[in-house]
């Protein structure tokens, strides 16, 4: 791979150097501008296909970026025998390809159709003409990358203290095959083909250096990170993410999301949990019970202590029976910052459906993604959920933790600071 035409940061005349996408005329309108926080604005309002987010910036995109509709998440392991040079070259190649992909360009020098008819195309082609659709690509590094026997990548001494594998929690039913991994890529966009194309091409670029360990296809964002976004619903049918950290809350982001130490300064920690729902059992639960389990009304999303969706719950309020109006075992109460020393997470999860099991039960649930300054924040809240009534209807089957490096500035590659002394 060679360096791509810098696709971001300033209005570019040519979205595709080959002009195949025919977007050159609208490139200026559709190209995002990075701000100090790394947040990019999506300014292609007249055509949602053209919204794009800068890949380069102080922070990686895909964290505070307004949550897109579709996700494809990949966990990869470095191949046996891979060297530090392999890891660095992979991160360089991914950086170049990610800058192209997030700008809606084809991958590689000759893209999908402009190469030799005798060679496989650089780009796999299924996103031709689709536009960037607000694609963000967010890269992370797992603890196993730092812990590999013999330290082939020469980074063992630079492992952040916070990057310690998560403890076991009550009701965990974790499967190794859908947990952990040396590297991760979170691809989010408003079109499903765009996210699949991104992961497919990035994993192809990785052949010989890293291989896919597991992937998760998600749809229908289950949280919001922007005040302008409606609160979406998860597969339980409830609004999710009402109290999330929003992208314009700089103080909360600095306090709860952005790491500040060493090479991770400006980065974050990503917890990815595959939470399977016992869909059939939940669907047989009466409405009143469902609302008591969650602690909110199903329709409006208001706390059971009253008001509307945005009303803060009154955890002290008692109902006519003398019990708490928002029950002591309800999900909202146990997860709320007020009962967790104020601890907050930036959640960015998606619904997933993955066929069915041998018994005809739908394999579906929540692919929970949260970004935090320190994984201890997640551990505190997840520990508090031990008595959550919702546990009857969910099983955590996959778990992973990644260090998400700060954004790559122009000319840098992903996680460059990790490799500099």
């Amino acid at each position, binding site marked *: 791979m060679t360096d791509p035409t810098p696709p971001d940061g300033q209005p570019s005349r040519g979205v595709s150097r080959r002009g195949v996408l025919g977007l050159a005329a609208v490139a200026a309108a559709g190209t995002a501008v990075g701000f100090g926080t790394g947040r990019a604005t999506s300014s292609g309002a007249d055509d949602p296909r053209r919204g794009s987010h800068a890949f380069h910036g102080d922070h990686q995109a895909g964290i505070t970026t307004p949550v897109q509709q579709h996700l494809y998440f990949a966990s990869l392991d470095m*191949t*046996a*025998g891979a060297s530090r040079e392999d890891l660095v070259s992979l991160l360089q190649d991914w950086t170049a390809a990610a800058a192209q992909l997030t700008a809606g360009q084809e991958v590689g020098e000759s893209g999908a159709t402009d*190469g*030799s008819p*005798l*060679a*496989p195309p650089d780009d796999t082609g299924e996103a031709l003409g689709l536009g960037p659709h607000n694609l963000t690509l967010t890269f992370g590094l797992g603890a196993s990358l730092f812990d590999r026997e013999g330290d082939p990548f020469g980074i063992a001494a630079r492992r952040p203290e916070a990057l310690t594998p998560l403890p076991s929690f009550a009701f965990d039913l974790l499967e190794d095959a859908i947990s952990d991994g040396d590297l991760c890529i979170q691809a989010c966009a408003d079109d499903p083909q765009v996210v699949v194309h991104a992961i497919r091409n990035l994993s*192809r670029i990785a*052949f*010989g*250096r890293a*291989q896919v360990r597991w992937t998760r296809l998600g749809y229908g964002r289950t949280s919001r990170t922007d005040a302008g976004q409606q609160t979406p619903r998860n597969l339980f049918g409830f609004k999710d993410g009402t109290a999330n950290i929003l992208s314009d809350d700089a103080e909360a982001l600095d306090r709860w999301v952005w790491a500040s130490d060493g090479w991770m300064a400006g980065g974050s920690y990503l917890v990815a949990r595959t939470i399977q729902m016992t869909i059939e059992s939940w669907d047989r639960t009466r409405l009143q019970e469902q609302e008591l389990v969650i602690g909110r009304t199903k329709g409006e999303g208001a706390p059971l202590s009253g008001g509307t969706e945005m009303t803060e719950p009154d955890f002290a309020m008692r109902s006519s029976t003398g019990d708490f109006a928002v029950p002591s075992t309800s999900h909202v109460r146990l997860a709320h910052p007020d009962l967790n020393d104020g601890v907050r997470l930036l959640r960015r999860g998606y619904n997933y459906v993955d066929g069915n099991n041998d018994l005809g039960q739908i394999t579906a649930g929540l692919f929970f993604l949260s970004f935090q300054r320190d994984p201890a924040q997640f551990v505190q809240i997840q520990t508090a959920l031990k008595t959550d009534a919702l546990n009857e209807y969910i099983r955590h089957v996959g778990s992973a933790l990644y260090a998400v490096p700060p954004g790559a500035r122009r000319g840098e590659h992903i996680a460059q600071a990790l490799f500099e002394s």
Partner: protein
Amino acid sequence: MKHLSLRSAAPLALVGALVLSGCVENNASASTSIAVTSTADDCEVESATATSGPVRFEVENSGDDVTEFYVLADDGLRIVGEVENIAAGASRDLTVQLQPGSYFTVCKPGMVGEGVGQAEFSVTGDEVQVSAGDQEAIDEAVASYTAYTKSQVAELVTGTRAFTEAYRAGNDDEARRLFPLARVNYERVEPTAGNFGDLDPKIDYRKPGAEAEGLPFTGFHRIEMDLWIDEARGNYPDEDLQPLDAAGRAALADQLDADIQSLYDEVHADDFELTIDDITNGAIGLLDEVAAPDGKLPGEENEFAHTDLYDFLANVEGAQVAYESVRDIAAANGADGEELVAELDEQFAAMEALLATYGSYDVGFVSYETVDQSARNALGAQLNALSEPLSKLTFTVLGVDPGE
């Protein structure tokens, strides 16, 4: 035309009247002549060394059978040069352009089997500068690979006969031992064999494939099912699978021998031709055979015997021979060509090193059933690491204007 230096152990073959432009006017100009005597059980080569450049082997057949003489590369597989159809009492010459490196010489009286009197042959001196990117280089590659295909099918004839004889005779332990070994020669040239559309289904179809197409289930895998009947009953518990009697065995064995002979006749026919595309695309095709959903990597090829690792290695070896025969042409195509061959050299070596951790043809490979999922994933990862650059070989060999 540009000049390039060929790497060591990267010879070009000159078969018969073929000459390499700018280097060798004809056979008579060969600077070195070496006498070779082919007998029934030996292959005497006058000298085991030569100086790089054109070398002429003067082969005399002192045996009673028609014979062949081969110069093989240091892997003992790739054919650098060959001369065929040397009648008893006759002599023919083979002139090959040899770069410094290690080779083998071998004769093949009867023109089938592995040959006799294989001996090391070493070439010293400077690399020979040649012009490349031209038709001659491509012709040499095609000639070399075509000869390889023929020799593999010839060995397949004898290997299969040994296997079917043991099976016919009820010597099941021996038949089970020979099953994966006999298949090696087939798997090395599988895409070529697959081109004969009526033969491959008879020789190499798996049970589900034959049944899906409504064909009688015959060939290697039908015999495999009979030799591993308990395993077969486990795989197909709803079917009343019975072992074959002597007549049933003989019918299968006879047909496999006949089908392999038909394959031999096809690839040794006067009109048998391969193209440079057959070689480069065949190389990636061989690796696709490994990775296919009914291939070796998922353990579906030999679903009863679990000898998939033999086939895996054989496919990789076949791909490597195809690659080696065009390697110089690829390397001649500028920095990209140099980079590609360096990558492919490394990845072929890594693939074979990984497979070697599971055994070899000589000592046997472990049952694929004992290779767990994470180990299969590692094999798959290395296969991807090899397949991705190999998919660029056709372009690198053919896609660059030689005049640029």
